[in-house]
């Protein structure tokens, strides 16, 4: 390394000594710069590579979730012997309830239920190419659970263990907490940004901005307990204990709002400060007041930057995990009532992977499907924000 720099300075010295030599004017390949350039390229490439890896892994495991047929013991044995050609037989009353069109498995044979009468089941034998054989009384029925994309997006109950795969039970709570967070953070954050950039004296700004940014440095687990032990009791004392459940999405949402507040205010403030001074001066020159200048000139001029700040903050709110895991609830529920308990997508992933999750179980695969859904939500937001930023971008100078 030292050799290298020495040789470079030697070259440099040689060049200055002989300015007239034709070769010295040609662009020189500087080895140091090449190294730096390729290092920077590698950094960029690595982050893209990692993103691709994550998407690949998410997609692969999600495919397992959607494509696979899982068998679950229904704890419901057959109560009579079934011959090769029997299509109707009696089952025990215990265990799972069967439905028409359920796919069941007895030993190795698959059967499709075509009729039900109390404990008497009518089936199509030897389904899906399996071989119809005789079964003894007491053989166990296994039920197939299969997640389909259609069920994933059109139903509202999420319980993979009993064959309910409606993502909306989780997605709505994520949307709800994020919406509440946005309602809290956007007005407050924007107002703070306008104050900091348009009204505050240099001194006040230098004091306030770092303090605001401390908020961003608080660990989210602390925010979580803040929500549970401060915000929830506060909400309950305002709206009444019967209205507000102990774990609720409102308190989690409000605290996420506090979490993303510095993000909004800081980034928006940067955007506002970047508006050229001449614009403000022109507004004042036309007789506008400070407020008019801020609201009608500076904010519209910085609109694309503000939107970018909002989108980053919203993505953060959607992905926020610890606060919702602690304060929002621990059971999937399809509800739009912010005072009810409801589990978000991230909260659900945390909870079910909290115990030891067995590999290749439906629960295990389901968390990747949820993860992929989260990924698509933030991706959509990012694309949307890029569109907006491009459309409303104001270029000065």
């Amino acid at each position, binding site marked *: 390394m030292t050799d290298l720099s020495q040789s470079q300075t030697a070259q440099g010295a040689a060049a200055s000594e002989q300015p007239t030599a034709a070769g010295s004017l040609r662009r020189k390949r500087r080895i140091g710069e090449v190294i730096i350039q390729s290092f920077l390229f590698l950094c960029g490439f690595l982050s893209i590579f990692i993103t691709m890896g994550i998407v690949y892994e998410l997609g692969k495991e999600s495919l397992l979730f959607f494509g696979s047929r899982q068998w679950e013991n229904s704890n419901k044995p057959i109560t009579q012997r079934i011959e090769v050609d029997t299509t109707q037989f009696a089952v025990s009353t215990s265990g799972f309830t069967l439905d028409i069109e359920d796919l069941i498995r007895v030993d190795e044979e698959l059967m499709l239920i075509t009729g039900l009468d109390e404990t008497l089941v009518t089936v199509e034998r030897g389904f899906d190419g399996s071989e119809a054989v005789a079964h003894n009384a007491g053989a166990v029925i296994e039920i197939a659970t299969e997640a389909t994309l259609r069920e994933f997006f059109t139903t509202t109950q999420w319980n993979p*263990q009993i064959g309910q795969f409606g993502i909306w039970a989780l997605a709505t709570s994520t949307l709800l907490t994020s919406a509440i967070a946005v309602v809290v953070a956007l007005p407050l954050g924007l107002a703070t940004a306008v104050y900091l950039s348009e009204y505050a004296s240099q001194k006040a700004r230098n004091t306030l901005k770092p303090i605001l940014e401390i908020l961003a440095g608080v660990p989210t687990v602390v925010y979580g307990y803040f929500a549970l032990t401060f915000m929830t009791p506060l909400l309950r004392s305002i709206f009444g204990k019967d209205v507000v459940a102990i774990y609720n999405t409102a308190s989690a949402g409000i605290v996420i709002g506090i979490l993303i507040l510095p993000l909004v205010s800081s980034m928006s403030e940067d955007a506002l400060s970047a508006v050229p001074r001449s614009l403000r001066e022109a507004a004042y020159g036309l007789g506008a007041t400070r407020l008019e200048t801020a609201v009608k000139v500076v904010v519209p001029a910085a609109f694309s930057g503000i939107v970018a700040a909002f989108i980053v903050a919203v993505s953060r709110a959607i992905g926020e995990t610890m606060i919702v895991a602690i304060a929002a609830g621990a059971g999937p529920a399809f509800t739009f009532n912010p005072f009810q308990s409801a589990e978000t997508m991230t909260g659900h992933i945390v909870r079910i992977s909290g115990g030891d999750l067995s590999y290749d179980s439906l629960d295990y695969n389901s968390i990747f499907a949820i993860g992929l859904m989260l990924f698509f939500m933030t991706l959509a937001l990012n694309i949307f924000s890029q569109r907006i930023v491009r459309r409303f971008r104001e270029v000065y100078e």
Partner: protein
Amino acid sequence: MQRKLYALLALLIVMSMVLAACGGSTATDAPADTGTDSGDTSTDSGDTGDDAMDDPMAMYDPATVTGDVVTAGSSTVFPLSERMAELFRQAGYAGNITVDSIGSGAGYERFCVEGESDIANTSRPIRDTEVESCQSIGRNPIEFRVGTDALAVVVSSENDFVTDVSMEELALIFGEAETWSDVRSEWPDEPIQRFIPGTDSGTFDYFVEEVFDENEEPILAASNTQLSEDDNVLVQGILGSPYAIGFYGYAYYAENEGALNILSIEGVEPIRENVDNNSYPLARPLFIYSDATILVEKPQVASFIWFYLTNVNDEVVDVGYFPASDADLLAARNAFLAAVGR
């Protein structure tokens, strides 16, 4: 300017620390108390431990064994194992002993499938399939009975209408019923808020087995249900509303006795007498499982289990459970002696 800023920052930090200290005190009270409690008893049990150990058991003296002990499993057995681990350390054990609270099913998985743990703490007997997977990795699980847990069905002390339920009503409350009045018409027309242990826990499996005849569909499909492997989350939830109900191991009820009401099942109260004579319908055994090869190869594990079995009865009531019968405990000790070849 700069200086003022630092002063302000310092003030903020100090203030937040003070606030944090105030806020934290309630949370840390309970563990701190139990810590000192066990500290008191430790010297006693240490002595009794020494007395109980005859010469042949000297190789299992906690002070002489080395190496780590890894235990994992039921959140119900967790407080008991945690206490025993603490006393074991106080008796002179110098290695690392970990007790993970991950649920019985996961405990078996770690013991029988991954083979990462030396001991599985569980609140239900091992299943045949789990024995098979254990054997497939060369382990033969040995069962040691360490106590009895009565599953507590609890409501907040603000709840003044429920004191006793039948098993059928329990199935309704945690299953199909939407409101309390769906269960009994004289109860209020308010939605039932349910707080139950997560599906990885032995407590959940046991409840489904006893109350729902092994069909987990109704309990998982019930609305307003919060599931958590963390029993404190459940306690907090139940404390939150007069219309909340939940169930978990007796120890967590004992810890929050004042604020929670425990229900009688079929008119039987969960007290020692009823648990011993098996009349309380939701009482269940607590176990630890290990394997003979592990006991021989890792004397520290054998030492811990022997320590556990000789001292558990002094501690089990204090932790919040009921002692196992003398016969069961004797059987456990004999199983241990047989496993280590004595």
